[in-house]
């Protein structure tokens, strides 16, 4: 990573003043150099600094486990867009423009991120070209979003995705925290990723406060994170099966997802992990006899899952629909900054648990699972591989929980004047929380980046050249969060 950036590890704090503030021209050069030098943008956002707008970039160098911070203060309400040279910041720049009224000049498609009604859509003109609009209310129990297809018959030229229907004002409300409202907002930022987001938050405030959770808390957090992955991956494989009208695996997996959610409920009373992860550790301990019971139920569920999911690979009609559908090329995946399952399905071996190990994953290594075709099938295969690794991890941890308390004794009070980036690997992929504290230790800015923020454009590109009837299948194979994006 080039010298302009202040380098920190995952969830390691820095004094904000130690992060260099450079001119926008240097900022651009440093950021573009870093991207050309194997770094990724994990977060890029604006904040108010006095009466001016400051931009903060956080980049990741996966191989070295390093996070780099750099700032610039804008002296004009516009700056030269980085998107033409660095497409992975396209949505971050749109967000900055929307939130702070500054213009990334030269941005190829500058429109709001969370105001779906107030925008024009990209349009393809020509004989027999037609437009299909879907949503925000969809034909199922699913979050709202609007999908605009430019088609010629079944053939999709272009898909534009307009989100913002789930915008509840989370980031705005987090400023001034931590407060008693902070944790419930973290738990519901993307409610199917309660553990992933709440853990990222807790790591951030623990890092800022210099508090270390006890070993047993790390193990229990890891178990909860992997149970969340097990439930969602299993549910997704079932839903993919349902989307190709193969009902046996869909039915089995629908039930098994519930079995995994019920194991999370054994930890804390809530199937979604509400009330479990707290600054300093976890709220509930898992006594040995219940840990044993959870391990036995996990074993049964995972053996059932193996049998149910094996049906997919053995069924030619399923394979025919999965293979070569919704392909994202590896180069494209890298260029647009995809993360998580969708990136690993393109052969990108990135996983926060491995590259920026946190909590229990500093001591126990979960292998990074990849596939190589970037299609629906690869995204399904990565999920199945990860189900096996997560189940092994949880079984191992349940059998060897450290004998310590589950909450740190020290209060978790963030230090003033700091910045911290906290990463976790949620079941969809990389979750990044960046907290900046003011003189009183309260958040002056709290930036959440759900993996979906990086990946929605990947779904749009996966549809190009495909058929409109493949959309539900492709959408499910990414299964991105609307609320995690909209916040």
């Amino acid at each position, binding site marked *: 990573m080039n010298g302009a950036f202040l380098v920190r590890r995952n969830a390691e704090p820095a004094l904000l003043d130690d992060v260099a503030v450079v001119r926008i021209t240097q900022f651009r050069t440093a950021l573009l150099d870093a991207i050309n030098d194997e770094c990724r943008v994990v977060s890029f956002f604006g904040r108010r600094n006095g009466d001016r707008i400051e931009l903060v970039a956080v980049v990741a160098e996966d191989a070295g486990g390093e996070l780099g911070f750099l700032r610039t203060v804008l002296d004009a309400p516009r700056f030269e867009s980085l998107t033409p040279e660095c497409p992975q910041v396209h949505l971050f720049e749109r967000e900055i423009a929307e939130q702070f009224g500054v213009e990334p000049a030269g941005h190829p498609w500058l429109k709001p991120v*969370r*105001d*779906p*009604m107030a925008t024009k859509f990209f349009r393809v003109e020509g004989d027999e070209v037609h437009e299909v609009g879907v949503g*925000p*209310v969809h*034909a*199922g*129990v*699913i*979050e*709202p979003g609007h999908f605009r297809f430019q088609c010629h018959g079944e053939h999709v030229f272009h898909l534009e995705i307009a989100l*913002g*229907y*789930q*915008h*509840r*004002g989370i980031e705005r*409300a987090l400023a001034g925290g931590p407060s*008693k*409202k902070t*944790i*419930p*907002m973290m738990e*519901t*930022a*993307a*409610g*199917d990723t*309660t553990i992933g987001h709440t853990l990222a938050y807790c790591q951030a405030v623990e890092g800022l406060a210099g508090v270390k959770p006890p070993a047993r808390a790390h193990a229990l957090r890891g178990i909860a994170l992997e149970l969340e992955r097990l439930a969602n991956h299993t549910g997704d494989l079932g839903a993919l099966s349902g989307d190709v009208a193969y009902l046996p695996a869909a*039915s089995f997996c*629908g*039930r098994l*997802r*519930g079995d995994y959610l*019920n194991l999370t*409920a*054994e*930890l*804390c*009373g*809530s*199937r*979604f992990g*509400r*009330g479990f992860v707290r600054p300093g550790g976890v*709220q*509930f301990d898992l006594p040995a006899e*219940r840990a044993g019971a959870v391990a036995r139920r996990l074993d049964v569920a995972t053996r059932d899952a193996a049998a149910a999911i094996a049906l997919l690979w053995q069924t030619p009609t399923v394979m025919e629909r999965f293979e070569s559908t919704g392909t994202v090329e590896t180069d494209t995946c890298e260029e647009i900054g995809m993360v998580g399952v969708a990136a690993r399905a393109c052969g990108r071996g990135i996983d926060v648990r491995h590259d920026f190990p946190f909590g229990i994953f500093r001591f126990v290594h979960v292998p990074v699972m990849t596939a190589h075709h970037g299609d629906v099938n690869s995204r399904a295969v990565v999920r199945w591989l990860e189900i096996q690794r997560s189940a092994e991890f949880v079984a191992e941890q349940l059998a060897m929980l450290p004998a310590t308390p589950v909450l740190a004794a020290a209060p978790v009070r963030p230090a003033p004047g700091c910045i911290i980036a906290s990463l976790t690997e949620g079941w969809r992929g990389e979750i990044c929380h960046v907290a900046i504290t003011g003189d009183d230790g309260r958040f002056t800015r709290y930036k959440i980046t759900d993996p979906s923020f990086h990946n929605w454009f990947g779904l749009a590109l996966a549809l190009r050249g495909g058929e409109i009837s493949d959309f539900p299948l492709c959408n499910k194979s990414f299964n991105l*969060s*609307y*609320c995690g994006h909209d916040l």
Partner: protein
Amino acid sequence: MTYPDGTPPALPAHFRGAPEIDAAKCPDGCAVCAEACPTDAITGAGPNIGIDLGRCLFCPECEAACPQGTIRFGSDYRLAARTRGDLQSLAGEERKLAERLDDALRRLFGRSLKLRVVSAGDCNACASDVNVLSTIGWDIGRFGIEIVASPRHADGLLVVGPVTETMRLALRKTYDAIPDPKIVIAVGACAISGGIYAGHPEQHDGAAGIVPVDCFIPGCPPHPLTILDGVLRLLGRLPPGA
């Protein structure tokens, strides 16, 4: 699953159902539970203490904060109510659970209820645990209840989420597209009161400000059993005394 004729499915050890409040334990002037509550769901103090289940997230904060053990979340999963006022859980008073629909509506919907689900700012947890009712374990089809794609095919609307401003119009249009007579069920703290997002200008503090709500099912998210209990209660499909 033998429920509702047989026993309901087992609930987990730390399950947080209807709160049990022992106001006799409250010392004068103590408000630690109210101060700990993220959604200000705790009303009154001392002998008049109560919890607004429409705002309650069923999180462990008040229970953990109270040194006397006044508030304890029990195992009663039955939470649905017909009016917002009936969600007020007061110390020493029995809660009024949802009454069934009137006879005319029960004749129409009692054995066949098609619901259109609209997600309007929810975090995907309420939606997921509504969705799970259609899986083979819960199988709401056995009651003639079905989640349908088109509002034109629906008898009612099930709303999750606080109703974001960006979804207000879509929710209203979906409601209008459902033929009369129709019912509306609000599931989860967000859809009832805005939940943790109450007061945010980006949302509308729940569904009732946009569409008339016939049944409120509290929780964050409610357990699938709580949701099923609420819907069956509304339809009068539960055995006597349940």
